[in-house]
């Protein structure tokens, strides 16, 4: 019955290790109020696409919209936008800060 010890261990490890989805990475926080006052991610994507961005993915992070994509200049970046104003707050590439709005 010794086999049950490693089995139990494996099960416990599997339980403990189930990947929690990456939540707020804490780069930028937005005081953006209730979601009812937010513009949609679709609106943001449309606006950015018009400006020359390629949006690969967007999600909510720290009360902001976080966008993975390519800037009009051609840089692969991670960028944050205010969900109410859609203002650009932060642009970074793998942790290197390329743009940060003062105060954020």
């Amino acid at each position: 019955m010794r086999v049950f010890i490693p089995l139990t261990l494996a099960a416990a490890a599997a339980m403990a290790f189930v990947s929690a989805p990456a939540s707020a990475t804490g780069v930028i926080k937005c005081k953006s109020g209730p979601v009812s006052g937010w513009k949609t991610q679709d609106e943001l994507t449309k606006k950015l696409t018009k400006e020359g961005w390629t949006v690969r993915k967007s999600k909510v992070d720290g009360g902001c919209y976080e966008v993975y994509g390519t800037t009009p200049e051609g840089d692969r970046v991670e960028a944050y936008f205010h969900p109410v104003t859609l203002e650009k707050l932060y642009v970074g590439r793998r942790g290197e800060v390329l743009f940060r709005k003062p105060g954020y």
Partner: protein
Amino acid sequence: MLRIILNKKPTFWLLLAIPALLMLRRYASGDLIAMDMLHPTGEWAARLMIFAMVLSPLVSLLGPKPWLNWLVQRRRALGVAAFVYSVLHLVFYLIDMGNLVDILAEFWALGIWTGWAAMLLFVPLALTSNDASMRRLKAGWKRLQRLVYPAAVLVLVHWIFIHNNLIPALVHFVPLVLLVGARFFLSPKPQPKGA
């Protein structure tokens, strides 16, 4: 019967493949895009590497235990699985980036080159994870496999800086550092061969 099947090496391989199969299925179904695959593949690579690395310290601290011995016999499989997940991680990175210009543009970011360097160190470790190499390299095999320690440091830095967040990396690495440290400080006597 059940016990015989569970103790077979292929069963262990299958067990190690389950997370990959689950995430690849979600990728194939379009549920996840290449970018979404980076985090889980990388996390499993690091996790399996750490799992392989803590077995010796556990044996040193707890003494010989049947369940530990069961895992130690499968340690090489854990290491190879860690490598396979890191290859998946790299493949999805290449798919996500899509072109060399973008890859080179971010190469020297601290969170990126450390990942490449760790991958580079993993290659000789994986290539020599077989009986023939163990026989041919003799004592050198163990010395070579110790490259996993600098690789682990690179993985830690890669994880912290790619994620802009300490917590998930530390959840995995603190137990490793404690166990390796405890082994180093608590057992001054040389390790018996094969431990």
